């Protein structure tokens, strides 16, 4: 793939990759803060940028079975969270297509 620069966000509070400070998501795009990942607190975002998604895999989570993909920062290739492809329970369907970013792997870029 060719030359592509990072996407830059425009908001008063932006979360970025802890390692390389690439912009990942706007604070306004948080849907819920009630999530937990492998490293502790995690947030559900409507949209994130500058990430690459890996292969889909099925995981059993506290809320049920889901198909998720790990997402990595496109610049430094560090894992920053995951993306929900499919949720098997109907109550969890709202997560489909949304992203989880782990708070431990983020920093604030303003």
């Amino acid at each position: 793939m060719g030359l592509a620069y990072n996407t830059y966000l425009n908001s008063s509070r932006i979360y970025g990759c802890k390692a390389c400070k690439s912009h990942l998501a706007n604070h306004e795009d948080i849907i819920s803060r009630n999530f937990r990942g492998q490293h502790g607190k995690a947030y559900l975002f409507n949209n994130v940028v500058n990430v690459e998604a890996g292969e889909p895999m099925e995981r059993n989570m506290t809320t049920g079975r889901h198909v998720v993909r790990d997402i990595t920062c496109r610049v430094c290739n560090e894992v920053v969270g995951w993306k929900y492809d499919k949720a098997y329970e109907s109550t969890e369907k709202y997560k489909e297509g949304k992203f989880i970013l782990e708070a431990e792997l983020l920093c604030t870029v303003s």
Partner: protein
Amino acid sequence: MLMEIDKGEPSSRDPRVVSNGSRPTGEHPLPGSSKTQKAPSETMRGARPNGAAVGVQQETYFGHDREEITRILIQALGDLGYHAAAENVAEESGFQVESPDVVAFRQAVLSGAWSRAEELLCGKGARASGQGSDNGGLVLAPGADRNIMRFRLRQQKFLELLEQRETGRALAVLRNELTPLCQEQHQTLHFLSRLLMCQDTEDLRSKASWDGASGRSRQVLLAQLSGSISPSVMLPERRLAVLLEDLKRSQVDRCLYHTSTESPSLCVDHLCDRSRFPSEMLDELSNPALESSKKPDEVWQVRFSPDGRRLATCGTDETVSIWDAEHLALMHRLHGHLKGEIGNLAWGPDSRLLVTCGFDRSARLWNTDTGECLRTIGGFEEPVSSCVWAADGQTFITGSFDKKKSICQWNMHGECVHSWTRAHRTEDLVLSRDQRWLVAMDEQCNLHVYDFVARKHVYDWALNARPTSLSISRDSRCLLINKADNEAVLLDIETHETVQKYTGQTGGNYTIRSDFGGANENFVICGSEDGHVYIWHKLTGLLVQRLEAHHASCNAVAWNPTDPCMFATAGDDGRVRIWSNRERAKALAATGRHPNGTSRTSSNGSLRSDPMRA
């Protein structure tokens, strides 16, 4: 005398236009009176296609007004130095380049007889309107203002008096002659009165940007005034040369495969041969990494040096390669950028220095003769995206995604001499050749235009799609913007008009670059994500050539600035290819060199037989 004879001819003369100077049938030579004329009238009668009357019928020269053509020819003969011939033609035809009033006016201005000049300009009665060349002064061109012309004459008089240190008389001129003429332009009057304070003539000359009565100022004044005088009494200077230049330019502009750099001949309509247009791969610059089986390093930018002798490429492999463009051989590989790809580079005007822009958030200055890194400029918090050099080669300007250091100007010591940063990020940057316009493109859909000399922001311009690269034409008037919606657009910088659009390429995901190129900058060349290189004719937008350049996306293209038959392309397949025409390819093969790359015989270099309308 000639005119009388002409008027005496039978009015039943047939005014049909005939070619080759042959007379229409039924005409006979004039009765005996013509024999008393000098020989020129008879040869003239034979030579003129219609043998026409001058005053009676308005015969045309193949559709053009006879009087205009003859006057232009007389002026041209005079300019060429053939004064006797010019006089002869003037006598024979009865036309004159300038009316006697204008001749007298010209002499008056050039000799400094200001009151006589004004008398001629305005006529004896000093009438305000400008009709009639005999009574009311010189006939003016439409829209010309007689008062402005009088002001200019009087201003020259004033300046010449000052030059001779006749300040008293100069003051009188200022008071009595200049002031009544300009009611509103106080600034001009103030400026002129300040000139009274000048200590000596040198000071006067430099302040007024005027080179004195003995210099060219009188000719310059005459040229200015003649622009306002009607062309029916005074032809603009060098009219034939101006017309021919215009004609040549329009022929060159229309040439679809233009590759010659010389001025076109006037004897034949200009058309370049298509076979000289670059359409075959000449060579592929070898990259040893391709031998191994790992994924090839993508090449993201390729640029010729301004003298056309060197080529620089950069991309994902974190080094910059400098190639000799004549021998197509590697000169240096520049190591030094830390981990991170190199997105862009810019040659200095001396073709020796090079600035590279890295994703490692630094810009580096290199000497391409030795391959050493002269300076590293860090301190950016985001990647450096682009660079342009000032024409004097002493400073360069970097563009970066760092909002606080978006556009910065650096000198050779790595010190920031000026910051143009204005709360936008910069993805690409161009500077016009006349050093007037500095244009920045940000990562949203906006262009920001600055006046480089005045160091001011001029305007912002919003585009309808995300732009991926910028280029500016050599005449500093047009901006080429490559956009992610599969279209490249040519914009006039001053009027913001869209001059032309070019389509056919595919893009949208990555940065694809486009550029001007070719003889007379007649072409726009662009890469594409489908691996082709597209060449359009700049003015008409016709697709002239589409070549399969790379097996993956073709990212960057560069036309050799000194060789209209050569351009280079760079792609995601890790290859850099040089393209030229068949005769060059044969010449190269004849020297025993074989082009690198195995795909010579496969589908690259394919030609389209007709220019495609995009």
